[in-house]
């Protein structure tokens, strides 16, 4: 098998740098495995280990510092058939820590080689996440204050199914690398080596001391059993293949005419005549309630009802980031023309169901014209306003709080305001199915008899 090394671009590491050993071992591994260059992608990080991709006749992806695992994952998702090998230093291990942990948890079939030489070679020998506290490095005293990590233990704890350590000098490195590449899932090899350019200028580290220290490090044996599970990509595709394709967006046909006032005008306000409270062409409705009152669902139903009469609709909701607590306000517009401004200017109906919602829109009440219908449930205090107030007592009508908004829509429909009863029922049939639909239809019909 011919070498994968790029004859035109021989390694350019400092004399004695152990990265050369790893380059040769990786070349040997590819040869032993009988791979072709186009089956392999080397994704390299930043720093001296970031040069790796340039030495091989394989696909290559050299990106940003610490992010190599992210590109590798993207490539592997797209092309599960490729062997994706990531080379990263102890620098990348630190800066890309979140990606290292997530890659271990995910178990996508990638191979990570950590070229661990205990310092940042390229930038001048500063301390990294693996620098021993007693080492003398380019970061002055700073490394003495921090504890180094054992990359393999961190990765094993995080869920990697294959973690092992090796010396860059060991003869068995190609076999170790091959086992890592063949592992069906995420595999990481922490390769301890020597940075002659920086680290060993002030610290004693030799193939012999590396071998000795590796032998003293804690065993990693338990992780393969502990973390054994399905490879992520295959698992993803298997799970996804069971999912039902999503239905295309629902189209709602026009079935009705929007309600008209006695003089034949639609009771709507126009975008073109925003100063007069003449509700021709555009109607705004605001529902003010609290979390749990299904305000947003009611808003959607009002819009769907409008759409059944061929109207344009818009819905803006306002609720706190927390759920099940606080205000819930829905701002709805139905219009015979395309909706321009989506803010509320002169609502033709305001539905006040809870104090939280009203408090959120207090300023609106002062501007309401006498034509605005204000549906106000018992015990909700609203600021004084010019609108026509209709007081409801949904509780006395034995309607549950989560149905008040829907009942208020039934009240609007009963008055043939904004929507008709036909439109409301059609909307409910679009939005709900089965038992729920039965319940809401009963509610709307029952409420009509109460009225």
């Amino acid at each position, binding site marked *: 098998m011919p070498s994968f090394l790029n004859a035109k671009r021989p390694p350019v590491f400092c004399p004695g740098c152990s990265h050369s050993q790893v380059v040769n071992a990786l070349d040997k591994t590819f040869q032993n495995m009988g791979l072709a260059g186009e089956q392999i992608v080397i994704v390299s990080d930043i720093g001296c280990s970031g040069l790796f991709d340039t030495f091989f006749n394989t696909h290559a992806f050299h990106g940003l510092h610490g992010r190599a695992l992210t590109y590798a994952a*993207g490539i592997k998702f797209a092309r599960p058939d490729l062997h994706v090998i990531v080379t990263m230093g102890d620098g990348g291990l630190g800066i890309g820590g979140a990606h290292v942990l997530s890659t271990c948890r995910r178990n996508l079939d990638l191979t990570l080689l950590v070229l661990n030489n205990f310092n940042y070679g390229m930038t001048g020998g500063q301390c990294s996440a693996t620098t021993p506290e007693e080492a003398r490095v380019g970061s002055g005293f700073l490394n003495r204050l921090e504890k180094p990590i054992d990359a393999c233990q961190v990765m094993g704890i995080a869920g990697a199914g294959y973690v092992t350590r090796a010396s860059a000098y060991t003869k068995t490195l190609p076999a170790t690398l091959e086992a890592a590449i063949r592992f069906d899932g995420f595999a990481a090899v922490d390769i301890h080596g020597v940075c002659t350019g920086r680290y060993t200028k002030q610290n004693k580290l030799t193939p012999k001391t590396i071998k000795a220290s590796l032998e003293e490090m804690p065993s990693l044996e338990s992780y393969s059993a502990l973390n054994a599970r399905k490879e992520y990509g295959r698992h993803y595709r298997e799970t996804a293949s069971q999912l039902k394709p999503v239905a295309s967006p629902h189209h709602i046909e026009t079935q009705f005419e929007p309600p008209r006032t006695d003089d034949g005008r639609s009771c709507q306000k126009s975008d073109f005549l925003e100063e007069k409270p003449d509700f021709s062409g555009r109607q705004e409705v605001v529902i003010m309630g609290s979390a749990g009152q299904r305000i947003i669902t009611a808003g959607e139903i009002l819009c769907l009802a409008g759409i059944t009469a061929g109207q344009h609709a818009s*819905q803006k909701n306002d609720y706190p980031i927390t759920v099940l607590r606080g205000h819930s306000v829905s701002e709805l517009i139905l219009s015979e023309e395309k909706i321009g401004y*989506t803010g509320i200017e002169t609502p033709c109906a305001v539905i006040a169901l809870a104090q939280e919602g009203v408090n959120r829109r207090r300023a609106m009440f002062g501007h309401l014209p006498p034509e605005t219908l204000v549906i106000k449930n018992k015990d909700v205090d609203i600021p004084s306003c010019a609108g026509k107030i209709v007081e409801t007592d949904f509780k006395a009508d034995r309607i549950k709080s989560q149905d008040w908004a829907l009942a208020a829509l039934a009240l609007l429909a009963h008055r043939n305001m904004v929507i008709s009863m036909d439109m409301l029922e059609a909307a409910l049939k679009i939005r709900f199915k089965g038992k729920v639909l039965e319940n809401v239809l009963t509610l709307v019909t029952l409420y009509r008899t109460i009225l």
Partner: protein
Amino acid sequence: MAFSFMEGNEAISWAAYKAGCRFFAGYPITPATTIFNTMLKLLPPDGGICIQGEDEIASIGFCLGASMAGMKVMTATSGPGISLYSEQISFAIGSEIPIVIVNVQRLGPSTGSATKGADGDIQFMRWGNSGGQPVIVLVPVDIKDCYILTMHAFNLAEEFRCPVFIAANKEVSMTRETIDLSSLTLPKITNRKYAADDTPFQPFAASADCLTPAFQPIGAKHLVRQTSSTHGLDGYITTDSELIAANQERLNTKIKNGADRFTFYEEFMAPGADTLIITYGVTARAAQVAVNTLCQNGHPVSLLVLKTLWPVPSRLIKTKSAPFKQIAVIEMNMGQYVREIKRLSGDKPVKFHGCMNGDLITPAQIREVLINA
């Protein structure tokens, strides 16, 4: 006519799917999360991939890897996420990786307000990368634009091999609206140009008539190299300043030369008007209402709505504003795009109204600016 009723974010997602996007990765953030939710429903059952990254940096990193393996990719976030994308965006620009980035803008600075809208990232999207090379930024006014511009965004990303932003706004993305999908005139789908299989492949070789290099995916028969380092045509690091200069020039001109072809806009020209409003995004809707009222009240004003903000459609802006005595720029920030308009307007007075308080700019506010103009 048959309407569907959906959020702007859903329209963006459906359009991406329609454009051939089969890879999405994102990190949850209001007001962009519903794009992730929709893509998660759309892609996996169809053999596509939708992934939740451990953070924004990973999410866009996944996308860049998948794009280089030949997929059409999209990610979505808001301002805080764009900050984290920044280094990856620089990479995608310099190394010509097609990607659509949806920025559902929310009120900043920083964490700001998750559920309030703004257009505060307009200059940030253009200049928030190292090296300062150009990107494409399209801005939707409404749900229809969310759909159509997203499809254009994919076409442009494929054609120019660059990041294309959809500069949405919470007010467009999270507002549900009616859309008649069957009435849309959709752009024809463009796919990236592939290099011939039978000639030696140079990953960054372009020609005078096509400034975008022909593509081969990672995993192709030809060995493909991608690198964030300053590179020659072969994708290896280079220090050759002539090669570097030529490449920088190409990155700049490939986008700028294309500008006239993807200058999207709408105009409303009122006879007798001496003022032209220039605006974009959701604010254009209030501006149109204000203009309608002013025209009806015998105070004609014209309106130019820009839907391509970057590269700056200089020719369009100059031509359209030429007949007017003055220009008024309205935007949901403290004055960002007005810089470009002023730069292009010579001696013509440019009035500005900006507001960034989480509320929409109202038609009444715009009328006031114009009446006092």
